[in-house]
């Protein structure tokens, strides 16, 4: 874990209530998520890293509360304190050759960085994204350009298969040896019970420190109490007590 100042290079509305935040700075590209300080708020906000390269990281966030609404108002050039190198992310090495990535909503964000890693390892990647409606869709073009197979579902049927990601999965019948999922808890539960074979899911919880020492985000798992911020956020499917 390190603390660094980054400068906002871009903070732009890219979908319904959804912003793309590009931070420029001299940090690490390790870690599953970053913990951002937001002006006027006591606690930091944890956001998954969607893409990272030397000196730059890209995050996607939705304005769901006061903190993210204030974050959305920060213009390019604003300096922001970032804790980075946090969390245990997806295990790309667990996939032998054919990966299935299933996201609900902004769960697509951390799966994009994973997809890049899997492709760099020469693996076949199938991606299934689900959204409520077409106005919420993010990363469609990016995933299409990167992956071997792509499917989309929207609840209202305004794009792709009408229904849940599980409906798109049933229609697609993808081949995979390992799956990865990120999204709302209820969606990940459905995905983990539908999909056979090994896989992992990225959980979310209200956090204090974000770095594993306050024990504010500890959940019960099959293996005992685990900190979502440090032992996770990614857990093997059989560890999660839904």
């Amino acid at each position, binding site marked *: 874990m390190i603390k660094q100042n980054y400068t906002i290079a871009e903070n732009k509305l890219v979908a319904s209530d959804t912003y793309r935040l590009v931070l420029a700075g001299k940090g690490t590209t390790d870690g599953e998520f970053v913990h951002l300080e937001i002006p006027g708020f*006591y606690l930091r906000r944890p956001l998954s890293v969607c893409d990272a390269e030397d000196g730059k990281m890209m995050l996607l966030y939705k304005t769901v509360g006061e903190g993210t609404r204030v974050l959305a108002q920060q213009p390019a050039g604003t300096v922001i304190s970032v804790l980075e190198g946090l969390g245990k992310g997806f295990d790309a090495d667990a996939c032998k050759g054919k990966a299935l990535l299933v996201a609900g909503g902004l769960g697509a964000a951390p799966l994009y960085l994973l997809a890049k890693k899997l492709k760099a390892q020469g693996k076949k990647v199938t991606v299934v994204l689900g959204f409520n409606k077409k106005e919420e869709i993010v990363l469609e073009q990016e995933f299409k350009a990167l992956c071997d197979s792509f499917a989309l579902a929207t609840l209202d049927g305004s794009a792709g298969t009408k229904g849940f990601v599980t409906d798109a999965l049933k229609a697609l019948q993808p081949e995979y040896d390992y799956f990865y999922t990120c999204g709302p808890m209820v969606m990940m539960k459905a995905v983990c019970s539908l999909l056979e074979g090994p896989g992992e899911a990225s959980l979310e919880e*209200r956090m204090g*420190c974000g770095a594993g020492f*306050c*024990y504010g985000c500890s959940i019960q798992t099959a293996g005992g*109490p685990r900190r979502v911020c440090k032992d996770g956020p990614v857990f093997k499917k059989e560890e999660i007590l839904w």
Partner: protein
Amino acid sequence: MVKDLSVNLCGLQLQNPVIPASGTFGFGLELAGSMDLNVLGAISLKGTTREARYGNPVPRIAEAPHGMLNSVGLQNPGIDVLVNEKVPALRKIYRQGVIANISGFSVEEYRECCAKADACEGIDLLEVNVSCPNVHGGGLAFGTSAKAAAEVTAAVKAVCKKPVFIKLSPNVTDIVEIARACEDAGADGLTLVNTFLGMRIDIVRRQPILANKMGGFSGAAIFPIALRMVYQVAHACKIPIMGCGGVASARDVIEMMMAGATAVQVGAENLRNPFACPEIIAELPAVMEQLHIDALKDIIGTV
């Protein structure tokens, strides 16, 4: 001139008065890879009970203006893991003060855990938590009654050779009365204060944010109240005080010490900024210079 930051807590010499407060710094080990722990004055380890505890259900964290609430509920691996695993592992990399923070649900549990901590070589000082607002039938129940706090103090003192500090709750009508009762029962020092019982409601979902409904409020917002309590107790008692509550800067440390604290604990600020303690320690000499202070121990209780 080189500034003297050292203080002495009942014979325990600290290189500086800055101590991460219990529950906001784990067992130290969690942060060992991110900073040099040896710059700290001491570490107050996460509150420990006889048996391992998971604590309360999540969500356990809520935000408030200039502060936060927690309802962790004393998640810990139990006293035996503390003394046999956590402290020996910490001692391999860390040579400054180690404070064990002990909580319990009966006088007997406090006595048993404190005896084990007292016998553990790596522990320098005991902090007895009679003030946790997040567990039912324990912690706070002992800290809101002068008689019960004195009873715990006497029981623990009877089995300990190391200095025993009692960590008091601010959720009382008269903290001075309880502080005096602890002093009379033989406490070597006091830690003031634990968190304030608070609550937040999610007005969209129309239910409490914390799964446990209520939690302990801490952070910068409570600093003036904690400072006032340190000041009142320092004027009523002779034993040393570790001041705690909303401390976020070198100036806050100095203010707490002027109010009567011999050492100062930093709590919620660590959750905003894990590097708060080393940053405050690094900032102290320059602030002392501005205020014409050569030795921090000279300002203790001077107001």
